[in-house]
């Protein structure tokens, strides 16, 4: 059975292909279109899926869409009509969106793929998330918790999941209906704090570490958590009808003060004292971020307790956009509500495509699904020979004119390249460059599933060099200084540098904010947040052998089997997809070198 999964029309459109129970491919459209969080129908990702699977569209058994658009429309219309007759603007936007795209997803997909519309099925949004979390986990049975902004009418859900006779049983046992949403609560405050919704939530989480949660009392009035673990969003604080720039009401602004302007600079740094003393407003925003983060964690924890109580299971699978919050995940793990917690590599809407495909595969009676996946499910880096030929025809002397990163003029002979067929040689040159405080782009094999760089499309630096991390922020990534970087490290190094009881799956893909030991503070100094935590990727040799060997070589070179690892992209752009994208980023930024497959390209300065 061959099932194509598709998610689109909100943010992070993706496609995934499941063939006979195996996830063959999964990627976000943004990697191909180069539009960050691209919401459009992921036709390029679909083409890549089919190419990777070596199948034609007419061989597909089903095309699974990650939500039910007509049901979603009913929610949008009900929301907009709730204030009738004063809500025509919102109604017009909802109806126009439905008429021009939302209602025709089945027809659009069928037409684009050349398959009969009967093959296209709509999977409920939270069931897609739940299937993604459970069917890629190593567990035989588990509680499944899904928490995001909203899907159709549901904002959070609990499922009781088990494998019975080779098929999954995934039964919903609780939901939190719209608008009682932890995700909407977090996103609304992300917007209030001047960050972009569905993109800047990580900034809210990072800013929280600089504040005190002194607004928790007020925020608990807004997002109330009852003794049974349910959460309720109070009336009168938010306006989610979508016709306002900021989804908060005057009442909220009166209670918490004016929102932050998106261009106002924040003075904090992860690696030291603030650039200048924070103003009262700066501190208010940090305190508010800390309060929002605390209340979000409380809601997640309470709902997890409810999941444990309702299902009686000892293991938790967790997905939905809120599962990207690694600080909340850490608190969930530390609380010990469940023996272990599993979060898939792409728990947000991007993973909905894979979830929908796995759910359809399971419900249609396909063979048993995979019990564990790895994240390297995207497209490869491209042909090194073609790239090598291209390098002869670049014009590095012109690159500086088209860079915003203060790139100095290069002469043609200052960009050199060589082909390194021996993987050990590749590791050696990268380690040597990192040891000289260079920042290296690492583009190896198939790219990662999800928003985090896990050693396929990464920018690497030494993990103990603060000055290099600062150059990375200012001249390559253009990233705020209060946002921390993450380390990739071996399991042996993790035992030395991290305060971690064993290595849970959630620590393999940067999904926890783990406290660091005293020794780790020195060894991983460039990847620490101000609260003394870091967001590790603990690399397994069987999952990423070349990347793991790089970490081992790092241990030989500077005594720590770790590198600073951040996504290979520039601010506002998605992570690079293929080798040409990596070369473009190399040309536009102050990046010192890039390794694309066996091709080693350097700026000689």
């Amino acid at each position, binding site marked *: 059975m061959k099932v194509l999964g598709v998610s689109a029309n909100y943010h992070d459109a993706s496609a995934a292909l499941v063939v006979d129970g195996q996830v063959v491919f999964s990627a976000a459209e943004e990697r191909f279109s180069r*539009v960050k969080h691209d919401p459009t129908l992921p036709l390029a990702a679909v083409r890549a899926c089919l190419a990777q699977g070596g199948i034609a569209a007419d061989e597909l058994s089903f095309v699974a869409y990650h939500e039910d658009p007509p049901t979603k429309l009913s929610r949008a219309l009900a929301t907009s009509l709730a204030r009738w007759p004063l809500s025509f603007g919102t109604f017009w936007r909802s109806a126009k969106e439905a008429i021009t795209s939302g209602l025709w997803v089945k027809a659009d997909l069928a037409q684009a793929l050349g398959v009969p519309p009967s093959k296209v099925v709509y999977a409920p949004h939270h069931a897609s998330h739940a299937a993604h979390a459970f069917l890629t986990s190593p567990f035989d049975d588990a509680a499944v918790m899904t928490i995001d902004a909203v899907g159709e009418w549901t904002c959070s859900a609990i499922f009781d999941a088990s494998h019975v006779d080779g098929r999954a049983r995934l039964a919903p046992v609780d939901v939190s209906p719209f608008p009682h949403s932890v995700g909407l609560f977090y996103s609304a405050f992300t917007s209030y704090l001047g960050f972009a919704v569905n993109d800047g939530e990580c900034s809210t989480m990072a800013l929280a570490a600089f504040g005190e949660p002194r607004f928790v009392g007020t925020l608990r009035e807004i997002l109330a958590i009852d003794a049974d673990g349910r959460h309720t969003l109070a009336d009168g604080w938010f306006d989610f009808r979508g016709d306002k720039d900021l989804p908060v009401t005057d009442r909220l602004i009166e209670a918490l003060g004016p929102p932050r302007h998106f261009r106002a600079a924040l003075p904090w740094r992860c690696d030291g004292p603030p650039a200048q003393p924070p103003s009262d407003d700066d501190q208010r925003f940090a305190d508010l971020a800390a309060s929002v983060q605390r209340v979000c964690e409380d809601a997640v924890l309470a709902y997890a307790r409810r999941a444990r109580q309702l299902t009686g299971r000892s293991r938790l699978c967790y997905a939905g956009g809120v599962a990207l919050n690694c600080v909340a995940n850490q608190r969930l793990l530390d609380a010990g509500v469940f023996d272990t917690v599993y979060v898939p590599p792409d728990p947000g809407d991007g993973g909905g495509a894979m979830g929908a495909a796995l759910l359809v595969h399971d419900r249609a009676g396909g063979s048993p699904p995979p019990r564990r996946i790895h994240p390297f499910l995207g497209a490869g880096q491209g042909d090194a020979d073609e790239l090598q030929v291209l390098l002869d025809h670049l014009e590095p002397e012109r690159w500086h004119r088209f860079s915003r990163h203060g790139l100095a003029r290069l002469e043609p002979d200052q960009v050199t390249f060589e082909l390194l067929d021996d993987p050990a040689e590749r590791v050696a040159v990268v380690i040597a460059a990192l040891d000289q405080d260079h920042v290296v782009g690492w583009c190896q094999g198939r790219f990662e599933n999800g928003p985090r760089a896990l050693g396929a499309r990464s920018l690497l630096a030494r993990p103990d060099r603060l000055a290099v991390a600062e150059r990375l922020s200012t001249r390559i990534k253009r990233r705020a200084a209060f946002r921390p970087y993450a380390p990739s490290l071996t399991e042996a190094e993790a035992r030395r540098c991290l305060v971690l009881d064993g290595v849970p799956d959630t620590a393999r893909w940067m999904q926890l904010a783990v406290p660091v030991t005293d020794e780790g503070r020195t060894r991983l100094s460039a990847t620490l947040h101000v609260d003394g935590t870091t967001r590790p990727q603990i690399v397994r040799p069987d999952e990423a052998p070349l990347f793991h060997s790089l970490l081992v070589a790092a241990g030989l070179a500077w005594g720590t089997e770790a590198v600073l690892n951040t996504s290979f992209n520039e601010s506002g752009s998605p992570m690079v997809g293929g080798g040409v994208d990596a070369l473009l980023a190399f040309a536009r930024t102050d990046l010192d070198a890039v390794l694309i497959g066996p091709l080693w390209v350097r700026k000689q300065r």
Partner: protein
Amino acid sequence: MNPRHWVIRHLTPRVWRLWPARRQAALMEFSAIERDSGQQLRQCMDLTQDPALRGYLFQHVLEETFHGELFEDLARSTADKHPIRHVLPREELIAPDSPSDDIRAFFSTVHVGEAAVNADFRVYAQAVADPATRGIFRVAGEDEARHEADTDRVLLQLCGTPASARSEARLAWRRRWWTLYVDAMHRVGLVPLTLLLGGTYLLLGWLAVPALRRRLRLGADAQLTLLQDQLDDFSSELQ
């Protein structure tokens, strides 16, 4: 005078002065057009094995991406709220079936696009008062003028003869005008759509609002039943 240029010269500066949000939206749209153009050129690199042409395309992508960033930075520098990035409809300029034909069609499309944008940017550079905005239009316009000449040269190489290149360019202009016509008709179509939706809104409101309000107030248990039903229907559909 080209009526579009007349509008840019005489109306746009006034509109932008009166409605700064409109200026910001327009700058973000320019940014999206330039980035999208860069992305199309990037895709075109996969259609050719000619290293020199790939090298040219690489440089062209850098330039278009840079223009996109200039416009976005300018929009951001004066905005009150996060500028919304436009996502342009994906024009399937490159079909996977016939690369050699498509690369000619693609290049002719790029060429006429450069010509049109170059002309527009020249007019914008003269019309707008703000020096920073004018400067960006001037810089981008100069690059687009060079791109127009470059793509003309590449199109001639790809087509083999000037007559064939002119023919491709004519087809590309027709495609561009057709796209503009469809876009204009789409906008015209919004008028009856709005009237229709207005009537529906009044009628729906009168008939359905009490039920919809009740739907919004459904408790968790009722919603859970609905999710279970939804999942059951979904499973039956697959059998």
